[in-house]
């Protein structure tokens, strides 16, 4: 499953390996084809409060530097791979919401965000803000080939987010929480600065009772969004 550039899509590209993960439970066999591309989890949120707390959050730390000692692969190779896909550090930044090495939230996490993440209905881990700058666009990639180690990715958009798969594009409106199947080929893009809360669910429960999101009409998007770079 290698691309011309040599990237092997069948591999787990998340640099942290099992670090900061918790045991994952799945009633449905935890393979990507058993789950939809995007599911709306039915949890409504107050975007204004989330944004307010994001604005107040201390973003001076460096996620990459603080975690790189725990990277499972060579740091230079990891940076090269991420740059190749489109996750360069100038265009995409993460600000952890958890105490390093745990899934416990930092004391500095705002009260509304804390209440949301601590009462989500299933255990969460690797909670973080993810900031994509205007013009960010990745190549198609998978993050990991199954859900056993890294759980099920949650997007909580503070700004409306888009995610593309091989055929479909989805609009993730702020105000809802979503499961995004990053074990399938997907890509991210944004023509405005975009902030989302990302984390991993340790259970597929909310996906099983959620509503599958249907794709949008790509023609409603600017050309920038429609294709892999």
């Amino acid at each position: 499953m290698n691309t011309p550039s040599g990237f092997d899509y069948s591999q787990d590209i998340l640099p942290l390996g099992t670090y900061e993960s918790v045991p994952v439970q799945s009633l449905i066999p935890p393979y990507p084809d058993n789950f939809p591309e995007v599911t709306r989890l039915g949890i409504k949120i107050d975007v204004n409060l989330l944004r307010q707390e994001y604005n107040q959050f201390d973003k001076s730390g460096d996620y990459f530097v603080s975690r790189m000692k725990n990277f499972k692969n060579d740091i230079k190779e990891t940076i090269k791979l991420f740059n190749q896909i489109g996750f360069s550090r100038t265009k995409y930044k993460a600000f952890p919401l958890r105490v390093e090495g745990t899934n416990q939230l930092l004391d500095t996490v705002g009260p509304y965000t804390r209440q949301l993440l601590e009462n989500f209905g299933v255990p969460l881990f690797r909670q973080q803000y993810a900031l994509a700058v205007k013009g960010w666009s990745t190549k198609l990639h998978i993050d990991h080939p199954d859900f056993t180690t890294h759980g099920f990715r949650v997007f909580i958009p503070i700004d409306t987010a888009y995610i593309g798969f091989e055929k479909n594009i989805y609009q993730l409106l702020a105000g809802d929480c979503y499961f995004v199947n990053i074990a399938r080929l997907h890509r991210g893009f944004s023509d405005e600065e975009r902030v989302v809360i990302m984390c991993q669910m340790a259970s597929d429960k909310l996906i099983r009772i959620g509503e599958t999101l249907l794709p949008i009409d790509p023609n409603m998007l600017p050309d920038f969004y429609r294709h892999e770079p």
Partner: protein
Amino acid sequence: MDITNLAYTPLDIDAIPLNYHELDDLMSKYSLPHHPYPHIWDAFAVCGRITAFDDATDCDKAWNDRYILDGDVQWNPHLTFDLQEKCKSMLDALPYLKYTFAQILSQKIDVAPHQDGLYDPTAPVRAAVYGGADGFNGEPEPAGLKVMLSHKNIRSFYLSERAGSKRNFIKIPDDTNSFACNERKYYHGAKHPGEKKYILSTFGIIDRTRHTELIERSVRKYNEYTIWF
């Protein structure tokens, strides 16, 4: 009878034939792009708590309020008397205490397999109406009650146990047009038949007793057509 894993059954309700050309004419003149998926379906609201039948968002509101008992259901003024009477007969035959919304859908493209939300914003209302013991369910399944208004012998509508598993296309016997399916537990989608296909999608408060009696009678009668997972 244990119908926990029943995905689909035709319903033992006599078919009411409609004139396809009359229906097609109505839809061509008065259907609206579906809200919020205008590229997937055209929709014609047959009845509901709607004041502006020419406003897709007003029709969508009626869908959101489908579990609210209060208020009179209005009929779309564009329906001919004959068509309205036939739609009334179809809805009266379904096991509702009160139907609150019905729409004719015509798909424009393949409808991707999807699962409707068990835990969605209407869940608290449903739980209050049905007394759901687990706090978010309560509506008797299979709760998707529909009438295939055209193309009933075409392989189009299907159900799958999981997102990517085998597609089981429904078959509808000659003597009925109505069917029930479990859209929350199982994935469902529809291949575009290449022509304008029309389906009446109905919503309301289900009468448990009538529903159980009808489903069990229908499963016995149409056993060879049923789909179980």
